[in-house]
């Protein structure tokens, strides 16, 4: 089932990806063929099969609720594209 450009735009919007018109068309075609391949799964009857959750068979481990040293403020901010004092700086959220 081929995707429409509108669907591609919706997915890109959910994923916060800016795409050019040429990219939208290319991804529309490529994603459609990948989804066609994936559709093979629908032929399996899995009504009585429990889903796998997580990747591990081990039990959920618990740890003591203790304070542990993390990164320093300086380390956390070291890779910031823009900062203001001890904070990350971003453009305005609202006009």
């Amino acid at each position, binding site marked *: 089932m081929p995707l429409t450009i509108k669907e591609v735009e919706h997915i890109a919007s959910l994923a916060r990806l800016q795409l050019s018109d040429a990219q939208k068309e290319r991804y529309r075609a490529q994603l459609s063929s990948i989804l066609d391949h994936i559709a093979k*799964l629908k032929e399996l009857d899995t009504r009585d099969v429990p889903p796998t959750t997580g990747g591990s068979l081990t039990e959920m481990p618990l740890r003591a609720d203790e304070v542990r040293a993390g990164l320093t403020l300086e380390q956390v901010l070291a890779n910031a594209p823009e900062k203001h004092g001890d904070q990350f700086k971003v*453009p305005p959220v609202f006009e």
Partner: protein
Amino acid sequence: MCVLCGKKNMTSLNELSLTQMQTGLARGDFSSRELMQSTLDAVAKHDPALHAFLHVASERAMQDAIESDQSPISNSRSLRSLPIAIKDVLSVENLPLTCGSKILEGFIAPFTATSVKKLQDAGMIVIGKTNTDEFAMGSSTENSAYGRTNNPWDLSRVPGGSSGGSAAAVAARLVPAALGTDTGGSVRQPAAFCGVTGLKTTYGRVSRYGLVAFGSSLDTVGVFARSAEDAALVFSAMAGRDPLDATSADVTVPKINFDKTDLRGLRVGVPQEYFIEGMQAEVESAVRAAIEQMKSLGAEIIPIRLPHTEYALPVYYIIAPAEASANLARFDGVRYGPRSEADTLWEVFFKTRGEKFGAEVTRRIMIGTYALSAGYYDAYYGQAQKTRTLITRDFEQAFASVDLIAAATTPSTAFVAGAHENNPLAMYLEDVFTLPANLAGIPGISIPAGFDNNGLPIGLQFLAPRFREDLLLQTAHVYQQVTDWHTRAPKF
């Protein structure tokens, strides 16, 4: 002159295997500094043709080596001073961490991954970060934003991926060992393409603290080396429970001994689903020959079925992109990495991600977002997770009657760069024999088992039950005692 044998024009130090380096250092045949100099010289000389490295930490590595020379290495089992390269998806404090992506250009890691830390604590020296498909998504390293790595057996071909830089560096004898990661085959497939030994560990066996997450229910840290014995050294040093990774398993890491010289008593399953139409004839015959050889070493060969194998690819290409779309949401141009210029925060997200992610990463984020979006979750993600259970059960049933599974690592040998450029699905098909192990969480190994008519290496894959890396490594070692495929070096 060779310091080990005294002959002229023989092996230079960087060409020694990990175990040979251990012996040489402990015997005092050469110093840590000499070993490091030879390694760094080899990288400087050959990496321009290979492009296996994204960053070489020459000064720091040399300093570490000089420091190590301050006290003698008395134990020939010590890992001290042994060089290792690290795939650039694992953090090493104060070194760049790019994940092969423009979205992390300039990022300097503030801490070290536990897997790497354990090797450093044992004395190993990190010499650099190796090339990878962007965020480990790919099977060729062509998806690296910093240019692809070339296969040392034929520079026009890809080294496989995503850990292609690590595989090529070990194959070319620049380093004796390197770390990689395997989410769908990213250690085993490049190991096969480059003719080296590549171990994918059990899910949960090695800590992932400090590994940039791709598919959280699939990601594993693995190792490349020139032999199973060498790989075991690195594996044993980095395996085990880590309080910093809640998904790491508290399962004892057995001491692996390599005393066995035959395979008597070993039941080896051969799955018919791993011999498919369209498979390269030389790969099939090399794998069948290897299985015959295992039989002559005393193994019992048992045909088995893994009936849901054909569903592994569609299951993987729902689960891995779904998890990736969530994991990669953190790259938004706010806290780290470069930021695209924009007037509002909203535009920063869209522009930064739109401009800095490459095509394959964008594709996978979109597939994952679609599969998880309202109205499609049950049909895609839900159905994939149920089918994943069936794939896991296939292996559980198989391992009720066999100890180990043997098959090809890949359907064909290394392909020419650009061959799958406009066909992402064809690229995904490269991983049909490696994906199932990730879905089931079991360990696997790829070892060299021959060459095709173009002189390209062929990979033989073993799979074992969870936490049985010991069995994989021991079996591979027995095979490597009676074959010399793993000792062949490329001339490039």
